């Protein structure tokens, strides 16, 4: 309500800025309708300037800045202009005074336009019901808003960067909300300050894997190995270490590792279907378990994810296609990028575009022959995705 009162006050002030001069001049004109002075003389300003110029000239002359002879010329010149201006001023000076009634329309316009345009546009564009939300006030009373709690923790950490517990708390939240760079930093800070723990090392490893589009890099493997050292047979690190073997193309070792993991896991553990799937992929017998979980896509950026949430499924498909095309173009320019090829092949396969996936696989194998370590990873991926490896790679 207060808002509307203030808006009304503003509108009235604007209208007054127009109405007051109009009304006052109408009254003044009525009071001195016959007075010539009410009518401005257009030439008055000009004449005044010339008078000032003459004064200026006198001062220059007195100060010795110009010679007498020059001053005479200048004076004559300005004098001529002054006369001309004064003469034409007299000619045009006798215009009739404005009529009083004319301002009625102008006043009406000035009264109607501000509220009409102001309110119409504001109702169209504004959000009158939405209160101000300064961050400090919101942080003082964050309620259950996760994002606000995160911000609060961030502000605390900006002041106290050595608070390991804070980093430890934030890291998994960052990971869940796809802020992988922040998660990486938070895990590393937590490990640096609080020391290594299975939870932190696994978290860091998973973050690095996510940052690398699902590839278990050396960096990630080191973290998992460290975690496995702290607690042998811990399922998460075991899984990723086995996955690393699989991605390196060491199928028998990978199968053995997955089978060990399946053995030490309690019956009915939620990760068993996934493990079973991997055992099968690496040439073993699948466990008698539930249906396989859907494979994860590559990793779009945070903005992409946000954008994707607002899209129809068709648009989303389009966006994913666009991202894949970009990657394909990048690889054409710079084919020496194994992780790129792995990701491209996987993406095509996930989208169900088998011919493209196989074509990409063949091109990737040209760069990384199947005999090499890198090539084996590609072949392994092909097996996992059920793709045929072109004969050229088998040489």
């Amino acid at each position, binding site marked *: 309500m207060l808002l509307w009162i203030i808006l009304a006050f503003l509108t009235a002030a604007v209208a007054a800025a127009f109405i007051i001069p109009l009304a006052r001049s109408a009254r003044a004109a009525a009071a001195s309708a016959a007075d010539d002075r009410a009518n401005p003389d257009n030439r008055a300003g000009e004449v005044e300037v010339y008078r000032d110029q003459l004064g200026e000239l006198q001062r*220059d002359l007195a100060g010795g800045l110009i010679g007498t002879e*020059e001053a005479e010329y200048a004076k004559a010149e*300005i004098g001529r202009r002054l006369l001309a*201006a004064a003469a034409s001023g007299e000619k045009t000076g006798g215009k009739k005074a404005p009529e009083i009634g004319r301002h009625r329309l*102008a006043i009406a316009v000035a009264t109607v336009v501000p509220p009409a345009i102001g309110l119409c546009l*504001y109702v169209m564009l504004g959000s009158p019901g939405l209160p101000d939300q300064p961050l400090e006030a919101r942080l003082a009373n964050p309620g259950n808003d996760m994002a606000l709690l995160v911000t609060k923790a961030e502000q605390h950490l900006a002041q106290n960067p050595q608070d390991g517990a804070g980093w430890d708390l934030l890291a998994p939240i960052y990971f869940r909300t796809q802020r992988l760079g922040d998660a990486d930093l938070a895990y590393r800070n937590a490990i640096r300050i609080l020391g290594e723990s299975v939870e932190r090392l696994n978290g860091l490893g998973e973050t690095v894997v996510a940052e690398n589009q699902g590839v278990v890099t050396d960096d990630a493997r080191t973290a998992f190995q460290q975690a496995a050292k702290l607690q042998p047979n811990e399922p998460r690190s075991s899984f990723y270490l086995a996955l690393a073997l699989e991605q390196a193309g060491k199928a028998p070792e990978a199968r053995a590792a997955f089978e060990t993991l399946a053995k030490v896991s309690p019956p009915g553990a939620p990760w068993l279907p996934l493990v079973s799937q991997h055992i099968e992929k690496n040439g073993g017998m699948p466990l008698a378990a539930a249906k396989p979980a859907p494979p994860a896509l590559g990793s779009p950026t945070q903005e992409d994810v946000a954008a994707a949430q607002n899209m129809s499924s068709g648009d989303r498909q389009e966006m994913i296609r666009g991202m894949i095309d970009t990657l394909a173009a990048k690889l054409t320019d710079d084919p020496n990028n194994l992780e790129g090829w792995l990701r491209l092949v996987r993406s095509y396969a996930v989208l169900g575009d088998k011919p493209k996936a196989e074509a990409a696989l063949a091109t990737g194998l040209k760069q990384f022959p199947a005999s090499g370590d890198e090539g084996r990873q590609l072949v392994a991926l092909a097996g996992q995705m059920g793709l045929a490896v072109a004969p050229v790679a088998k040489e």
Partner: protein
Amino acid sequence: MIIEIGHYALVLALATSLLVSVLPMIGARRGDTGMMQVATTGSLMLFGLVVIAFAVLTWAYVVSDFSVMNVWENSHSLMPLIYKYSGVWGNHEGSMMLWLLILTLFSAMVAAFGRNLPETLKANVLAVQSWIATAFLIFILFTSNPFTRLNPAPAEGQDLNPVLQDLGLAVHPPLLYLGYVGFSVCFSFAIAALIEGRIDAAWARWVRPWALAAWCFLTVGIAMGSYWAYYELGWGGWWFWDPVENASFMPWLAGTALLHSALVMEKREALKIWTVLLAIMTFSLSLLGTFLVRSGVLTSVHAFATDPTRGIFILCILAFFIGGAFILFAWRAPMLKSGGLFAPISREGSLVLNNLILTVACATVLTGTLYPLALETLTGEKISVGAPFFDMTFGLLMLPLLVAVPFGPMLAWKRGDLLGALQRLYVFAAISLAAGLVFWYIHNGGPVLAIFALALGFWGMLGAVADLWNRAQFGKQKTSVAFRRLVGLPRSAFGTALAHFGLGVTVLGIFSASLYGTEAVVDLKPGATVSTGGYELTFTGMKDGAGPNYTEQRGIFTVRRGGNVIGEISSSKRLFTARRQATTESGIRTYGLSQLYVSLGDATNGGGMVVRVWWKPFITCIWGGALVMMFGGFVSLSDRRLRVGAPSRKAKPVKPAKPTRPQMEPAE
């Protein structure tokens, strides 16, 4: 609620500017005082409303209200407070608000201080200003509304572009806009004159200070932008002939021409129509610059967002104002009475030469800027027009102008005497050449042409001194008398001399930095040393650090000269956590007028860093000269007296038979 008040104030500003666009113009046509007075109150009200809107937006930034989309997109709660303020215009919407704020500020100033302006002229000028404000208000409200809200509000902002998190953002855009938009007043005066079909002495008297003020701000705004790019981008260059830079430089060239022709007009009532045309051209180039920068036609740090509807909208504004102005000019200009006559060799003549060279130079820059864009649009071919083109065209055009600058103020009004001016200047020409030679001798090894280049710089500086010297009649009068005359000279004379001196300083800086600068790109391991420009830099090592919203790696270098440690330089690579974007902070140390510039590159395999080191002799002269120019402009602006140009009757040799009588000197 505060935010919504700001939004409503902006909407109301549109209603106000519509009224001010129409009512005073009708009033001026009918000779209706009341309707003309509406322009004054309305313009002040318009300014007040825009101030409210701008203040509210700033408040939203300062308190990090992320329910405002613009704040969420361009701010972060951990950003230092100064960047929360400057971040207001560090984005598309906010920068348009700043543009509007300055535009309405100038309208309000015309309204408040234009009491002795002829009433119809004032009404028309303010109405035209209001047209511009209306166009930009519609643009802001419908395509780039800074008050769009988000519900629910995000908890943290997306941070300001790290490149913009710098003091430069607080200084460069407001100054540049004060310049750009300041020329809108000259434009409005020109349009008002065309509508009235009459240009009188009062008109000329009013246009000159506005052109001067806008020119001062634009000069220093461009210089600050150049310095910012120099230290922030880490490329060691200070001017790249980048289309965005050209976009600000073109109005400056046209504005410089306008400033000089407005002077002729005020003093001598000559060049009236030409001044009107220049006023239109200058502001048109400002609008063109806004279009190029804001539409996303060009990709640069200035193009915050590329949204085609915005581009088309600005293009429409551009077409309306520029096209409309030129049509009006073609229609009405022949009806204007042209003024005083003058001989080819006279002060007026020299100012015409100045105008011609500046406009042609401006046209070459325009060609070099737009040609690649046109070519890309028409044929899809991408070419880049860079320094070689501009050096050959613009550089060559500027040379005769720089030679001619000291002559201008020496010539008398109406009829000048080139021989006399030459005689007055030859001593200074000789000194300039000698100074150039000395310079060359100190840095011997430079190309021979460099002497002339440097001499040109000194020529500009000494020519300005010569101007004052002659006016005070040193050498002709007793020293004490001459000194008294010097003190008694009008401030506008000092302003002219200072501005021309500053130009000389800038030219000197440009030539000496580009001719004698040295560059070294090396792979340095900690402990290694690189030497350039007589300084030795030892790489001490890298140090980790953190700022409020970034982490950094700082490379530290010890500077030695002749074996003695004289200081430390550090350059750092920063990673801004919110956007995960990296920037390089270059390390700069100033020794005298010269600078040592260090920029950190990438780490190499052997544990070293790629380091670029530049030695830039006298480079600060470039920006220092611009500051002197601006200062000269303000000195002249502070002289509120009228400018009268007293004509001289005929040419006289410098050494007449009667030495007792003081010489006739052109008066300022």
